[in-house]
């Protein structure tokens, strides 16, 4: 499924016009150079003193002749042949030796790594051209010696790149798994690590090839590479240098050829890197815009405010958020409506991929665009639709009236600033406090979340704190500007169970103290829901399937999904022999079935469940389920 929706490497390269142009140019030059022996050219080294320094486009001499009357076109093609083959061979030699060194150093680590890498560092310490000159001086001038010199000076580049990649791969679990499968170190290196390093080697090769061609030309230009009369682009340039004013074409033509060759190789190299680099492949270089794009027809027409919703802190109506990946549309949120009462705690429960986080992110337009966009819905707050707000008004709300607490406190805190400074910054972003006042307020907030020695902890950095303490800092930041709504996205999932209990207790205390703040609590854990939530909305495949008071939904679920999900959570002390698992897995939101998304896994499903859209039906007071056969019904 994923394979078909992601374009292949070749297709990606083909669509990169610049890289494709480079590839065509390089192939053209290479093919001409390859077939040089059968082309109707005069021999490259045949001198004709009578025809010295003919201009280009002379009769029979398309590119003219040089100072010895040799045909420039022929020399150019034969010269390109030499330059390309030397460049390619040097790249191959450098990549094989350099990659082997990098692989061994990265995999073996310890002393081997130290010895090999210090050797490579020594090679790097010399200016490369000086080193190449020294090697050629020692071995004597000549094309093959120039080749060795160029290969040698480029080994460190490969070795360092490959070592870094190998080092990070060696610590991955799959290497341990291969060890447990009985593979020895050599086999692990060759069959497990090398295939993962290979794309990086190709990228490095494609980016160095142009450089190598240039270096070959450079050494030949200095008279240390190709020896006369052999044609080589660098040597031709060197010979033409003396005639730059009398016969500029003699040096300009090989110069242009070098330029075209190196440029085409570099363009291919950039293209190959873009195609093979997994980070660039997933499109992470396209920076998401500051807020989620809204492509909603109803947002533009801005319907009359929902009067019934004005007493709520927030009312969401038919919110739909989609992600466009390749050609597939993922309906992450497929029409979600709920109200969040003032001071209320609403739990949004569901499994991964149910759309609960995207719903939360969409409220303040935090879902990344591209690939995300909101295609429909309204989010009402005080009679205004947040989806019609311009960026500056959304930014004023973020961390102000509406604050977020995220799952992983370590990644949501900045590693280089003290936690006190980060809380103070959050305050200053919304309130006109001086630096000192903000710091004082930050310390009192840290006290409020019951961090011991708040005044000294304010000076510590996130990595110095435990997970529970970091999450308390995040809660302090969320409380900084007296929010009316706090959106907490799995705030205790990354914490240990004893720390989770501490944080849940803290959040309950804070709610009692700040009566006004409403809490939208996103979690997958029904235990956490019962502890903290007043109401709960259960999500499945991008839609709410059941809503009601937390105690009622948990003790008397109406939707089969809710009941089955609650039943398959093991409860300590209940000593179940076998857990009642739900068969199958949730549907992919890019390919939702017609009717009820849960029908395929539901033991009660019948024909009607798979027909048409099933609405959220009222079951009792403030109780709804998206099911045509709910587990219970109130008497009409």
């Amino acid at each position: 499924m994923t394979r078909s929706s992601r374009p292949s490497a070749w297709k990606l390269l083909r669509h990169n016009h610049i890289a494709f142009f480079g590839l065509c140019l390089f192939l053209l030059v290479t093919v001409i150079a390859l077939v040089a022996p059968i082309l109707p050219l005069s021999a490259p080294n045949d001198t004709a003193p009578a025809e010295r320094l003919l201009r280009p486009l002379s009769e029979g001499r398309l590119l003219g002749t040089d100072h010895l009357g040799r045909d420039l076109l022929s020399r150019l093609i034969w010269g390109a042949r030499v330059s390309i083959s030397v460049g390619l061979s040097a790249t191959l030699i450098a990549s094989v030796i350099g990659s082997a060194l990098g692989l061994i150093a990265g995999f073996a680590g310890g002393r081997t790594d130290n010895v090999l890498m210090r050797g490579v560092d020594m090679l790097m310490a010399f200016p490369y051209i000086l080193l190449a000159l020294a090697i050629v001086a020692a071995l004597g001038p000549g094309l093959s010696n120039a080749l060795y010199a160029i290969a040698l000076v480029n080994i460190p580049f490969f070795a360092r790149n490959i070592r870094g990649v190998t080092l990070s791969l060696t610590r991955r679990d799959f290497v341990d798994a291969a060890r447990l499968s009985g593979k020895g170190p050599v086999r692990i290196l060759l069959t497990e690590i090398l295939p993962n390093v290979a794309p990086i080697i190709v990228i490095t090769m494609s980016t160095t090839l142009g450089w190598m061609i240039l270096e070959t030309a450079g050494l030949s230009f200095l008279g240390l590479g190709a020896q006369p009369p052999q044609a080589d682009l660098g040597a031709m340039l060197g010979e033409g240098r003396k005639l730059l004013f009398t016969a500029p074409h003699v040096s300009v033509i090989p110069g242009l050829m070098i330029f075209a060759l190196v440029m085409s190789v570099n363009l291919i190299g950039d293209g190959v890197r873009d195609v093979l680099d997994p980070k660039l492949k997933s499109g992470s270089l396209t920076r998401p815009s500051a807020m989620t794009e809204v492509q909603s027809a109803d947002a533009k027409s801005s319907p009359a405010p929902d009067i019934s919703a004005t007493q709520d802190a927030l009312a969401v109506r038919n919110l739909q958020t989609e992600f466009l990946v390749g050609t597939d549309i993922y309906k992450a949120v497929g029409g979600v409506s709920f109200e969040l009462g003032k001071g209320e705690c609403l739990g949004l429960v569901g499994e991964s991929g149910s759309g609960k986080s995207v719903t939360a992110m969409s409220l303040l337009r935090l879902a990344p665009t591209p690939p995300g966009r909101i295609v429909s819905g309204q989010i009402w707050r005080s009679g205004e639709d947040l989806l019609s707000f311009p960026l500056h008004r959304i930014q004023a709300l973020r961390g102000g009236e509406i604050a977020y607490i995220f799952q992983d406190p370590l990644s949501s805190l900045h590693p280089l600033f003290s936690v006190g400074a980060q809380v103070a910054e959050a305050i200053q972003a919304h309130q006109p406090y001086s630096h000192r006042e903000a710091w004082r307020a930050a310390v009192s907030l840290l006290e409020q979340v019951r961090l011991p020695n708040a005044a000294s902890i304010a000076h510590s950095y996130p990595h110095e704190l435990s997970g529970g303490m970091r999450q308390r800092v995040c809660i302090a930041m969320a409380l900084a500007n007296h929010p009316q709504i706090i959106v907490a996205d799995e705030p205790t999932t990354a914490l240990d169970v004893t720390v989770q209990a501490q944080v849940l207790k803290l959040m309950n205390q804070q709610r009692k103290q700040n009566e006004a703040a409403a809490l939208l609590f996103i979690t997958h854990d029904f235990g956490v829901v019962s502890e903290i939530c007043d109401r709960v909305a259960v999500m499945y495949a991008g839609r709410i399937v059941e809503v009601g008071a937390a105690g009622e939904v948990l003790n008397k679920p109406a939707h089969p999904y809710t009941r089955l999900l609650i039943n398959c959570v093991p409860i300590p002390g209940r000593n179940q022999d076998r857990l009642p698992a739900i068969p199958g897995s949730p549907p992919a939101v890019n390919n939702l079935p017609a009717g009820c998304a849960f029908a395929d896994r539901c033991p009660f499903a019948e024909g009607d469940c798979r027909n048409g859209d099933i609405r959220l039906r009222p079951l009792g007071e403030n109780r709804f389920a998206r099911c045509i056969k709910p587990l219970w019904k109130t008497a009409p």
Partner: protein
Amino acid sequence: MSMSATLLTASNLTRHYGGGRGWLGRRKPLIQAVQGVDLCIQPGATLGIVGESGCGKSTLARMLVGLDQPSAGHLLLDGKSWPDQSRSERKRLHSQIQYVFQDSLSALNPRKTIRAILEAPMDHLLGMERNARYRRLQELMEAVGLRPELLERYPHELSGGQAQRIGIARALAAQPQILVLDEPVSALDVSIQAQVLNLLQDLQQHYRLAYVFISHDLAVVEAVSDVVAVMYFGRIVEQAPAGELFRSPKHPYTRLLLDSIPLPGKKGLRGESETIELPDPAAPPQGCPFAPRCVNARDKCRHEQPRLRPMEGEERIAACHFPLVF
């Protein structure tokens, strides 16, 4: 516990990191990850190990399967000292004890097909022929409940639940007697978690496997284990048959863990409310490492480290000077 032959015995298993002196003679801090752990693993039984992050449970698991070397103590696998053995003997012993990783996807090489991944242990540990491998692959895929078409797929094309099933299949491919499962379901959604737990139960019955089941989730550990060991700060602090442990914990830390679990449909969480400073692993306290958090701690607890000792009239051991009474 029955008197059947013990498969794996760990005695006084210890692992520390760091220590010694650095380049310029500076003392490096010594971190005690696992300290003096004794374990016995019986055929067909499940030993659950529960603890919070940093308690040493993963280090212990890696030592059991031979991915990490103990700094002190012994492991006896099948009556032989493990893992220091000749290469061929090591291979034979390796096929006896296998490991299931927490992050199943990262434990699968992204550039290999599922077939190549599953064939590796059959080829390198058991030296199976091509035809035998083929038959075994079909059997394995059926055992873990996956369609054989998946064999030609690459890991990134699998869902989390499928990837964990492949992880289990790979561990089974070597025909082990013991599986060490390190948080095998904690990355999965609850509905998938229940499927995988049930699968593990079926496989245990079918192949008469012994499990070492490591998790931070008490409820999950209780559901699968015969005996549960609770780890805190590198040590086992309490060990008892699963039902008894959860009915009446004797160590205050076990009690705290139980009290900290929020239960569906119930409100009023017990457990701690203050932030607790955990002991510094580089400078362990003199007495009981849990004493600073313990409501019952007395002077003795702060000065004398309690040893694991049997509790009267029970198949239980606990390391507490003043065990809880009910």
